[in-house]
């Protein structure tokens, strides 16, 4: 059983294999062809994911989480339930990305497969991911988006609160919450799910240990939000104002090009990306590719009109 992910998504493949109670190895290649993943299935259930949730990956994750010293080569000193919790988190996070792949291919090879540390059904996985998505949406509302920048509250405020019990993730958040990173960057820095970090930050803010500083006024980020919502003209207005103020802001020029494409004005997009190259010469290759694509599109549309 094999095929391109553009025709059948990974979740459908997993559901088919689950219904057939198939055992074997499912090799999946996404947009990066050099980074293949292998899912091990026993009677239709995912029992292992390599290399993302292998033993070596678990050790690396525990080191990154400061639960093992940097020179650790094994995780024997960590309790088995903790190791498996970390493994499950790694697998869930990797699968969350893989399920969105629409490029690449899969190849399933049936055969006897040893039991592994996981035991996930495809349906449970989907439910899990849907639940995480809705938690993210709720939290984004509660936190006013992911742009807030957490930092330790002033000493007098921290001191006056009630007794708290903090776990390892809380301590890592306190360590990394520097008032510069926003919530999204904090979650990425900690390599933890956005919704988990968001919930913890909300609790720490409620406990008067952290405070959330307003997002930095970033017109490019605001413009991106507008683009995501289809408000291209609003995005263009913000970005034009930005590049007038800071002509060397390459990211603003790049985003302006995207907004112009969204609005169907390819000639202006090409102009914006040309300015992007001038502001950021190291982006020339990326900009050229986009400019070529915009020209092709412009010519195609022009030919179609003719």
């Amino acid at each position, binding site marked *: 059983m094999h095929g391109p992910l553009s025709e059948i998504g990974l979740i459908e493949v997993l559901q088919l294999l689950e219904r057939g109670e198939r055992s074997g190895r499912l090799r999946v290649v996404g947009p990066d062809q050099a980074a293949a993943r292998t899912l091990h299935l026993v009677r239709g259930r995912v029992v292992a994911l390599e290399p993302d949730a292998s033993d070596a990956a678990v050790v690396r994750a525990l080191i990154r989480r*400061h639960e093992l010293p940097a020179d650790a080569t094994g995780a024997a000193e960590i*309790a088995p339930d*903790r190791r498996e919790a970390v493994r499950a988190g790694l697998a869930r996070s990797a699968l969350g990305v893989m399920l969105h792949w629409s490029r690449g291919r899969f190849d399933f090879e049936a055969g006897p497969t040893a039991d592994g540390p996981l035991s996930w059904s495809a349906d449970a996985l989907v439910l899990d991911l849907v639940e995480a998505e809705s938690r993210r949406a709720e939290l984004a509302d509660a936190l006013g988006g992911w742009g807030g920048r957490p930092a330790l509250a002033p000493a007098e405020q921290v001191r006056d609160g009630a007794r708290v019990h903090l*776990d*390892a993730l809380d*301590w890592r958040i306190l360590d990394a919450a*520097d*008032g510069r990173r926003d919530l999204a960057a904090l979650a990425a820095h900690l390599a933890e799910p956005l919704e988990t970090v968001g919930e913890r930050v909300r609790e720490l803010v409620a406990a008067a240990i952290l405070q959330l*500083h307003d997002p930095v006024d970033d017109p490019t980020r605001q413009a991106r939000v507008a683009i995501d919502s289809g408000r291209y003209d609003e995005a263009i207005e913000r970005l034009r104002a930005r590049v007038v103020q800071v002509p060397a802001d390459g990211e603003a020029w790049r985003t302006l090009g995207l907004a112009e494409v969204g609005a169907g004005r390819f000639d202006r997009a090409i102009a914006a990306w040309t300015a992007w190259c001038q502001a950021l010469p190291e982006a020339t290759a990326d900009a050229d590719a986009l400019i070529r694509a915009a020209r092709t599109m412009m010519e195609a549309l022009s030919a179609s009109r003719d």
Partner: protein
Amino acid sequence: MAVPSAPDGGQLLALRHRLDPADPVALANLAWLSARAGELELAQQAARQAAALPGAPRSAWRTLERLALGRTDGLTLAPPDTAARAAGASRGGSPLVAAVAAHREAASAVAEACYQAALGDPALAPAAWNGLAVLHEQRGETEAADAAWQRALAHPSEGAIHNRALAWMRRGDLARGRSLLAEHADRVAESAPLLFLAGYAALLDDDPAMARFAVEAALARDPDLVRAQFTLGLVAERLGRHAEALTAIRRGLMMSPWFVPMVWLLENGSGGSIELADEAADALPKIASDDVLLILGRSLLDAGHLGEALGVFDQVLLREEQHTAALFHRGVVLAKLRRYGEALDDWERLIEAAPGSSLGDVARRHAASARELATLFAPA
């Protein structure tokens, strides 16, 4: 508004107010955060406080140890759940295990803090007193060591008896060392390290017959006790039993090329003893490894095993280039092998190193002969 980038001391102190002071995991993690924020004093305080509490996680000891070495890298957080915490403690998170580990690494400040923490647990206290006593003895703090040994010997373990006797011997009081071992004759009879120590003390006290009896008994209990094997060779040599001496020392040399005559026995609560080489064993009346090797070399030389004898004298000279006896005897071996030029080199080095010594005089005579012989064997 400006936002601070890392927690400052005031914020960390305020945070400490919010934590349960009886929770070693919370305190250990506060130590971690403080160290990463550069608040090292606060970090050390929190880690010590955590380490003094029952069930302290391994990370508390690790933080203490790293900070004592002036390092802030490699620190870890405590496991996030209680099950893991309990497992961490049972797998070596005890202050005594940490103390012995630090003691073996010569991190004495950390070892002392950890031993002190272990004193709070009645089950660990005797072994902790023993470790503390060794630490004080190594630092030359004899009064503190005596006081600690008194506490350790309230529940006399193999390690406490051994180390106390060894301390007397190091201080030059062989009689008190032997007397202590005699007081605990029942324990001594069942322990290879104690039997060995009794034998070694007897040898130092010029009682080779008793030494032989005790060392052989030690080897009967533990044939792999290398220091007993070497010492048996020394005892046999002292008794004029050269063949036995040769056999024992060669057997010892096969087991390990280095003779470490004295070790401290540390206990970490797991039931056995952990050996710590006594770096200051020079304080003992001199029977050092080089002497053992010299005896072996001479025995091999007398028995005509010239190649092996050469190897043994080479070992001594590798460690001490101007060792006069080794230079002299290697010269003899080389001369017997008709390598007169090299023999001459050794003797000339000896004459230069110890011109007025009796060995120097003999070497001078040998060198004159060797010079003539070297001429005979020189290429035309």
